Every structure is written in C-alpha cells, then in structure tokens.
C-alpha cells in the first residue's frame, strides 16, 4: 500500500524532506512504520515524536492505502 508521509520541524531536517510516498509491503503497523523511519533518518528522541494518521493523533488505527501519516516533533507554538 501507498502511504503519504509528512515530516515537520527537526524531523524534516533529519529526513532532508518534508514529504514522501512510501510503498509498504505486508501491512505494517503504525509503530513499525515509525521505527523504520526513525532508524532510516536517525531521528533523535523518538519517544517525543507523535504520529498523526489523517490528522488524527489516535494511533490505535490500522494503516490503509492512501493514508497521510505525519511525523510530529514536540509542539512549540506561541
């Protein structure tokens, strides 16, 4: 399945990009996707990284083809 991945802040900096489309095999879980990208881009402090699926922080979802998954570092608004 194809997942549209978005990166923000220090994660975009680590990845060297703000988005990409990943073709994933074998229905990986959201946790597996996170681990994979954390390793690939050497993302620091991974426990501070939240994932949003289709703009929703609830991570108890199964990935579906076409989902938008955002890698969000700690919020710093204001």
């Amino acid at each position, binding site marked *: 399945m194809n997942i549209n991945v*978005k990166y*923000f*802040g220090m994660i975009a900096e680590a990845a060297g990009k703000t988005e990409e489309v990943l073709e994933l095999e074998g229905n990986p879980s959201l946790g597996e996707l996170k681990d994979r990208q954390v390793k690939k881009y050497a993302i620091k402090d991974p426990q501070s990284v939240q994932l949003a699926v289709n*703009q929703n922080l609830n991570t108890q979802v199964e990935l579906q083809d076409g989902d938008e998954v955002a890698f969000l570092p*700690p*919020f710093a*608004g*204001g």
Partner: protein
Amino acid sequence: MEKKKPKKIFVQGAIPPEKIAGAIANHQSKTNIGAHSIFLGQIRADEIEGRTVSAIEYTAYEEMAENIYHEIRETAFSKFNITCAHVYHSLGKVKTGELCLFVFTSSAHRKMAIEACNYFVEEIKTKLPIFGKEIFEDETHQWKVNK
C-alpha cells in the same frame, strides 16, 4: 463529521501592533461587550550556551492545526459566555521583540473574557502542531520545545 469551514489562524511573519489596534477598533460597535482580554506572545532574545536567539522560524502542519483550532474554538464557545474570539499565529520568521501570537476574547463581563483567553492560550500551546526553529545570531539554530 465537522462541516463548518475552519477559521484561518496563520499569518505570514510577525503580527504588527496595528493589527491589534484594528481588531480592537472593530469591536467598538459591539456594545454588548464590556471586557476584552488579550494575550500576546513575543519572541525573546534568549541566551543559550553563549548564543543569543535572533528569530524564530515557525512552521506548522497547517490543515491539522486549523482543524484542531476549530475544535478548541467550539469548546471555548460552549464553556465560556463570550461574544467573540480571534486567534492569530505567525508562520515563517519572527524576529526577537516581534509578536508571534495574538489571542483576543470579548465578553459582557471580565471573568469570562479572561478565562476564555487563558483557555485559548493553553490549548494553542499544547495542542496545535506548530514547530519553532530558534535561529541564533551566529546563524546556527536549535528546535524550540514548549515547557
């Protein structure tokens, strides 16, 4: 499912003081208002390990931020008896001394305006996917984290 169009909250660059005066002036025809509460976030020239912050460059997951802001706004209007609420947050580079956040709530009485303003500020700081790159005078940077 939410059908209403989310309010825009992002503005490019710093929020000028004149925008605040304009927002206040716009509310002088609303004569049921007795109290306005305003919060402004300003960029501090923090010194971190010998380097001084000269600006913060803000980015955001804009669509998600606007949807979450819409929920915050709906909750605020249900919790507090306010007549109006306006929130603006900067994107892009905001220099030290400039304003990056403007929260403006109005009510017949002070208590509701003040409580609603505080509610918006706390929710915005903790729930909106906004990211800040602290740029130092020597062009190095670090990523800001809200405490």
